[in-house]
């Protein structure tokens, strides 16, 4: 479901492809509902080892994140800090991961490449970034850790199943049409970089 609440665009799980049709690269929204964390090892296990993700994230959210959690006396888990990790590390797995899990929204940090953009277009998903390093805001937005799975991978790599409320701001970086915010920006960044390299190089001829 997608709605506007107190001036904020809120996306709530379960998410349908038509919910996402309204979100385009550069748009800002907040997330309500269920997500599972997954980084390198989770992708390795699901995509290359063929194991089923222990949490059903069809029409839900994957967050590239390795949080700090603390076990409570009753055996449950408390979220201490959570923020996104570099998404590009997961680029090599993401097409197959989205295809296998039916995930709709990927939350991460920085850009992703053409495989993920193809997955977003082919399967009706989006990639978005949460500004990273803001892990206490992330923890405050986490209402509950519903479960911890694959704990043998270690705290950062395990699957943490969470319920969040107004997690964000999230900025759409790949939309369901496959447009890629970072790739488009990068063309401009690279052009200016080459100009600057030339400009600076003229002023640093120190070798003799």
């Amino acid at each position, binding site marked *: 479901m997608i709605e506007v609440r107190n001036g904020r665009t809120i996306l709530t799980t379960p998410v349908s492809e038509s919910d996402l049709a309204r979100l385009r690269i550069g748009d800002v929204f907040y997330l309500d509902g269920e997500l599972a964390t997954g980084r390198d090892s989770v992708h390795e296990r699901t995509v290359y080892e063929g194991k089923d993700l222990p949490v059903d994230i069809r029409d839900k959210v994957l967050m590239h994140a390795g949080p*700090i959690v603390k076990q409570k006396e009753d055996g449950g888990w408390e979220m201490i800090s959570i923020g996104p990790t570099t998404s*590009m590390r997961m680029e090599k797995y993401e097409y197959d991961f989205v295809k296998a899990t039916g995930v709709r929204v990927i939350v991460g940090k920085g850009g992703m490449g053409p495989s993920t953009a193809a997955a977003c277009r082919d399967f009706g998903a989006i990639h978005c970034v949460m500004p990273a390093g803001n892990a*206490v805001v992330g923890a405050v937005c986490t209402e509950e850790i519903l479960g911890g799975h694959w704990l043998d991978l270690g705290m950062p790599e395990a699957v943490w199943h969470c319920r969040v409320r107004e997690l964000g701001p999230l900025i759409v970086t790949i939309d369901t049409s496959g447009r890629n915010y970072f790739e488009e*920006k990068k063309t401009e960044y690279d052009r*200016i970089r080459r100009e600057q390299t030339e400009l600076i190089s003229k002023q640093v001829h120190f070798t003799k």
Partner: protein
Amino acid sequence: MSHLATAGKMTGIMAAFISYTAKNLPDDVLARLEALRSQETEPLAVEIYSLMFRNLQLARELDRPICQDTGYMQFWIRCGSSFPLIGELEGLLTEAVRIATAETPLRYNVVETFDEVNTGTNTGTGAPTFWWDIIPGWDGCEIYTYPAGGGCSLPGHAMVLMPGQGYEAVVDFVLERMTSYGLNACPPLLVGVGIGTSVETAALNAKHALMRPVGSCSENERVAKLEQLLEDGINAIGFGPQGLGGRHSVMGVNVVNTARHPADLGVAVSVSCWCHRRGRITFDSDLNYTVSTHSGFDMGGSK
């Protein structure tokens, strides 16, 4: 106080310092971020800075790590040859990391290579990292603490150029790394550039460059000029906070250089994210200490 008791005291201070620096940014970093925030006009960049400052406030109020990636601890020790605990330093700093990991809590970030197992203590083979300088005749000890984050360690790169390629190639090397990797590494970045003779000397110089205060400049006029040119050049690229676009992409560029072989020009780049949590604490022989990076740190033993 017995030798063992002094070592215990220093362990406690270092554990508290490691923990504090995971939750509070250094004064110079905070001041630079405030300055960059005030100059930002892009609405998205303004919103990102608001989030960052709200997060810093929440970290203080709730006493929690600013970022979930609390890093892989690295120490640059500048130890006087007469410092009483010189022989115990590696052991006590390792113990301090174990204590800080449990008490802060810090995320478990040490994975044994090849075995690919997370140790769960933030210690392991060669972890934490120690780099040593011995200062002859001094009885004090200065320790730089740095939790190396995963995302901001990823752009790290070193190579040896042919001198004929010149400092022009250094500029190309650094700038290329900014658009290929830097924009994913949580900008505004602090960029450390090392110049030396081999990959090892260049890389260590780049790390030392990250320990220099934000806004400081090299004493060598040419190096200082290069720092300014690189800073302006990277800002001009315009990737801004989080790489999403903005006026400033970096908090600064620090260059540290050592001499080279006539046939080699070693260069390295090492970056830190906006959450640049380096600390510097200096002890005298009685373990009175001063902290130059964090004016708020005081557990009663400071001078």
